[in-house]
């Protein structure tokens, strides 16, 4: 099993992929190291959120993804 990183909205273009499979467990520094420099830069901005296993993290630097978790990278939204 592994952790699936999911790129949403404009981060998908930056990553050049929809998803990325990485080895579990995955923490914040592991995430920054896995996604490439451009996405890592975005991730460090306050306006980008991270969800793990369907929940938005109040503190994304506390990420602790385990086997089978999906980690979604959530840029600023724009609906309607």
């Amino acid at each position, binding site marked *: 099993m592994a952790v699936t990183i999911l790129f949403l*909205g404009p981060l998908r*273009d930056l990553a050049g992929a929809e998803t990325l499979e990485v080895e579990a467990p995955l923490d914040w520094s592991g995430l920054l190291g896995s996604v490439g420099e451009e996405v890592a830069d975005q991730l460090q901005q306050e306006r980008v959120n991270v969800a793990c296993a369907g929940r938005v993290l109040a503190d994304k630097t506390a990420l602790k993804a385990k086997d089978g978790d999906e980690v979604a990278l959530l*840029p600023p*939204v*724009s*609906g*309607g």
Partner: protein
Amino acid sequence: MDPGAELEALTAATPDAGGIASFVGKVRASGGVEALELSHYEPLTLPGMQELAAQAEQRFALMGLTMIHRIGTMGPGDPIVLVGAAARHRRDAILAVDFCMDHLKSAAWFWKREKRGGEWHWIEPRIEDHADLARWS
């Protein structure tokens, strides 16, 4: 999505309401937008909208609330989003629509991009959208 049919259904479901307010957002027919694409993140988007509906029902005295947001690719003139609110008194209905739309625009899990001149461009919420949202907190 057929906004007229949705509003008719809401009206039929709330016979005791004194009024129905609504907003339908759509893709503008001119201005050079060839297509609009809305994406979402299913594990967050629907629960987020359900939570938004619960907040609206707590804030306003509503008899019914319809909230529909499309995803996928849409063309000029197509409806994107519909909020309809039925209430005993008109201002509850109007304010609930205003409240839900402000949240759907800049606090719901949707990402929007437009195709212009054959190229896709991601859209961020306008400054005004954040200011509109801040009115409610």
